[in-house]
Structures are given as structure tokens and as C-alpha cells.
């Protein structure tokens, strides 16, 4: 009985939206793209595109039956205030999201991944 429950919950965990895996994918992608660079107006366009595309390809490689939405915000450290909020209307048992806040000395980077089960 206990073993059955363990197996079911493991199966659900593997098929569902696993926050830790997604979080790792995001962090690697941001590190690889921005690393220790300063905010450069002419390159930041490539960075955001590169981050979302890398994340998306890694996530689709996971092979889970999900639709993904990935958002990336890069902001120069200049003393400005910024607030972000998001709300979702979905199926709580199958869908999930993961947000990673990353920073270095010159920029903030916020990446959100939303996974919706098919």
C-alpha cells in the first residue's frame, strides 16, 4: 500500500512540472549567455533571445507533454525600481511555473517559465 503510493507520487512527479529541473536549466542558460558581462545596449537584444531560445530547446528535450511560455527580462542596475507580477488561470494539479532571479554586478535578469499540460 505504501509502496503503491510512493510509485504513484513518483510517476506524477516525473510527468508533472518539476520546478528544480526547470530552475537548473534556466540558471545554466543565463550564466552561459550573460556571465559576468556589463549591460550593453546593442547586445542585450541577442542575450534575451538567446536565453529564451536555449531554455526552450532544453525544455522540449525533456520530452514532457507540456506547452511552454518563457519570459525574460534584463535590466541595467541603475537604481530604478521595478515590480513584476503574474497571475494564471489554469489547472493547478498539472500546470506550474518557475521564476529565477539572477544578477551580477551590472544587470538583473528575471526568467519565468510557465508549463501547461496538454
Amino acid at each position, binding site marked *: 500500500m505504501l509502496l503503491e503510493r510512493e510509485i504513484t507520487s513518483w510517476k506524477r512527479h516525473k510527468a508533472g512540472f518539476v520546478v528544480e529541473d526547470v530552475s537548473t536549466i534556466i540558471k545554466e542558460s543565463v550564466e552561459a549567455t550573460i556571465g559576468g558581462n556589463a*549591460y550593453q*545596449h546593442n547586445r*542585450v*537584444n541577442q*542575450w*534575451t*533571445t538567446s*536565453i*529564451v*531560445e536555449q*531554455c*526552450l530547446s532544453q*525544455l*522540449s528535450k525533456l520530452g514532457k507533454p*507540456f*506547452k*511552454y*511560455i*518563457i*519570459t*525574460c*527580462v*534584463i*535590466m*541595467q*542596475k*541603475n*537604481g*530604478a*525600481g*521595478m*515590480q*513584476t*507580477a*503574474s*497571475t*494564471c*488561470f*489554469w*489547472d493547478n494539479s498539472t*500546470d506550474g511555473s518557475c521564476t529565477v532571479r539572477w544578477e551580477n554586478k551590472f544587470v538583473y535578469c528575471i526568467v*519565468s517559465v*510557465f508549463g*501547461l499540460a*496538454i
Partner: protein
Amino acid sequence: MEEFNSGEEVVFNPDEISVSVKEVCSLILGNIIINIILNAIGWMTSCLLISSQCVEGVIGGTDYNQSKVNQWTASIVEHSLTHLVKQGRPFKYIVNCTIMQKSGAGLHTANSCYWDTATDGSCTVRWENRTMYCVVSVFAVAVAL
């Protein structure tokens, strides 16, 4: 003859109306108008209308205020989502709102989606005033019925 009692002259200053009163009035009026229009137009246009209406209702005419910005973003996303859901279309929604103070900093956002392009879609509204930028993104993913 009636005595004309001239009291103190009070100038009606719309800027002094609190945000909450403005918000409620704008939302009520917006609700009525929107419901009429939404029935006739496609979902993308209605998303745009809803988002811009919500942003204008919550932060139209105010300056960036660090203590209130938390309420504003929460309010914008909640109201947008409520209006979208009220339309009754078979979609799952994700509403994202970013408010940034205008202080010369650079900001870049991007999003990428892995979905069925025939049935799913997104729309983004950019709004600004003298002291801040506001970007609202709505993503709609079709639900298999």
C-alpha cells in the same frame, strides 16, 4: 427671495481623487462598455482592450510610488484575468505585468512560446506616463475540450 449663501470656493481638482475611487468608476464604466464591444470582436483585440483598460484604470495619472507599486501590479493582473475569464472562451490564461520607474536604466524583455500556433496566442500592451513604464503580456493557451 432665497438667500444665496456663498460658502468657500472649492475647486474640483480631479487629481486629488484617490486612486481607488478612480479605479472603481473606471472599472464600472469600462465593464459596461467592454461587455458590449467584446461580444463582437476577436479575442486578440479584446485582450488588448482589457489590458489597456485595466492599466489605465489602476495607474493612469499617478506617479511611480514604491510603496504602492506592489498593489498596482497585483491589481492590474487580477482585474485583467477576471475580465478575460468572464469572456467564457475555452482558454487557460497567463497575465504578466511589469512596472518600471523611468530613471534612464535600460530594460529589455523577450518571450518565447512552445505551443500550437493555430490555437494559442499572446498579446502585449506597452503603456507609459511621465514617471513609469508598464508592460502587460497576456498568453492564452487553448484547452482541449
